[in-house]
């Protein structure tokens, strides 16, 4: 057994048993952050905070929500919204956070792409991040089902039908996923389970992996500069704080992070109190009706771009294009053939590629929301083809990139 001495303080008592000083070093005071990074690097912290908000508001919603096809709609729209004191607050926080979290994820992702933070040595950070994105998508979709409104029901119908995989006609698989011929009680209860237990657990595990993946290659920086973290952190600990290229995560960098988080939270609660309706689809305020489809079905804004890639083609090709869009981002570290770790603006053709991709996805998003008619279908088709062409072209564009 280890040797224990009489504790001199509560901290010392804990330290002997939990090594809290060591933990503090690893997590904060000797976790090194490069100095030259901008506010875009604070998105990770914003995501962590938003996830916490989702978790807390979700717990309060969970106490009154009823996962039953006859009561789910009223438990949300009547009990929680009108009867429970401050129930509306938890629902608005939950709904707005679910939407805003995707905005921040996209910013986080495109920051990574812009600065080359997925490159050699940092592939696991990228992959674990993309896995998080996928799990968050499943989490958002399963949560969208729970109020059992019209859009919930029909989104559930349409998305689960995708699993029949077009001409493969795997109707048995679709019925297995639903536990019924159509979305019904079994479907609601299992999506409830996924939303409140299994997927959040997976998300927490993946967040752990995402952070762990950061420990060894360390966080990238604005210039893509390769920093010798050992040497620089030694300089810092020896007192040359100004000369060192790195600083402590806690409490030096954290203060900047929290500043950005503060600005974000003001924006966030502005939305919660004054503009919450953008996150709540009006169609979902009609209870689910299995014999009537809403005139126009569309997903939440954050899925529109991939939905639009599915839409303009015939079923099978659409499904292949859709599958392509789901997995292609994961392969980015290998599709980018250039060894340069540098911001896109110093990388020539890649910078054009980056902005084209971003614009293309915004166009896809806009077209996904509009009804699939006339000129909008055509623009959607062009943008969907553009998306595929951009990704196919990426290896060729980056192969000949000159060293910067």
């Amino acid at each position, binding site marked *: 057994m280890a040797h224990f001495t009489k504790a001199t303080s509560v901290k010392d008592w804990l330290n002997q048993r939990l090594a809290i000083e060591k933990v503090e070093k690893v997590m904060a005071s000797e976790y090194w952050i490069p100095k030259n990074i901008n506010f875009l690097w604070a998105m990770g912290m914003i995501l962590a905070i938003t996830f916490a908000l989702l978790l807390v508001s979700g717990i309060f919603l969970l106490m009154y929500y009823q996962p039953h096809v006859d009561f789910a709609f009223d438990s949300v729209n009547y009990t929680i919204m009108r009867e429970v004191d401050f129930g509306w607050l938890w629902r608005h926080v939950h709904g707005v956070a679910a939407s805003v979290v995707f905005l921040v994820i996209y910013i986080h992702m495109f920051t990574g792409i812009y600065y080359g933070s997925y490159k050699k040595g940092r592939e696991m950070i990228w992959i674990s991040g993309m896995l998080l994105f996928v799990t968050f998508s499943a989490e958002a979709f399963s949560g969208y089902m729970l109020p059992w409104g019209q859009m919930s029901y*029909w989104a559930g*119908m*349409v998305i689960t*039908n*995708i699993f029949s995989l*077009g*001409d493969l*006609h795997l109707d048995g698989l679709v*019925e*297995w*996923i*639903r*536990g*019924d*011929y*159509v979305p*019904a009680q*079994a479907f609601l209860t*299992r999506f409830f389970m996924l939303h409140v237990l299994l997927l959040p657990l997976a998300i927490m595990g993946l967040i752990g992996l995402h952070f762990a993946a950061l420990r060894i290659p360390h966080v990238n920086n604005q210039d893509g500069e390769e920093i010798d973290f050992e040497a620089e952190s030694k300089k810092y600990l020896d007192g040359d704080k100004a000369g060192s290229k790195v600083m402590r995560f806690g409490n030096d960098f954290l203060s900047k992070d929290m500043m950005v988080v503060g600005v974000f939270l003001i924006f966030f609660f502005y939305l919660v109190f004054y503009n919450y309706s953008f996150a709540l689809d009006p169609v979902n305020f009609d209870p689910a009706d*299995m*014999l*009537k*489809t*809403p*005139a*126009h*079905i569309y997903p939440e804004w954050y899925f529109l771009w991939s939905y639009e890639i599915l*839409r303009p*083609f*015939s*079923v*099978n090709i*659409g499904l292949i294009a859709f599958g392509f869009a789901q997995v292609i981002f994961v392969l980015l570290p290998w599709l980018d053939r250039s060894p340069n770790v540098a911001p896109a603006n110093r990388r020539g053709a890649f910078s054009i590629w980056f902005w084209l991709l971003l614009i293309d996805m915004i166009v896809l998003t806009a077209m996904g929301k509009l*009804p*699939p*008619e006339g000129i909008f*279908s055509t623009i959607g088709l062009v943008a969907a083809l553009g998306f595929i062409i951009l990704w196919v072209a990426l290896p060729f564009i980056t192969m000949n990139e000159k060293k910067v």
Partner: protein
Amino acid sequence: MHNSSRRGFMGKAFGAVAGVGAVGSLVAMKKSWDPLPSVKAAGFTTLDMTIYPEGELITEKWRGKPIFVLKKTAEMIASQTESQKARSVTVGGSEFMIAIGLCTHLGCIPSYNPAEKSFLCACHGGMFNWAGEVTKVPPPRAFDIPPFKIEGNNMILGEVGPEYKAMKDSGITL
């Protein structure tokens, strides 16, 4: 050496036991997600086919899905093409268009326009004619026909009768 081979054996033996357990539990997990017997048992609906007015689309419900029933008018019967005739179901001397009312694209419910005698699926703009055939993509095929069995003037949905079997074998429906 002796020791390590004993450990090796224990490792393999444990692996085998755990493997059997893992496969067993996967089977149980798969089966737990299957539709319940009560859900399956409720999967039959009997329709009295004498009550339908001619030329008017009526929506019935079977397994939570809408079922389109359209008793064809004399005019429709006269103008039928061969392929439309093959999709027709005759009960008690009248001809019916009967179909699962879900778009074969992604499963929205197309709405019937009596003036144009056609269906429009609002989701992605697919169109069907009154006989259930696709007139505008993306839907990949005509409306599916639910399994049915004819007994006198009744039609039982969910059971497979000879007429349905013939349609399935000839590829008219899935």
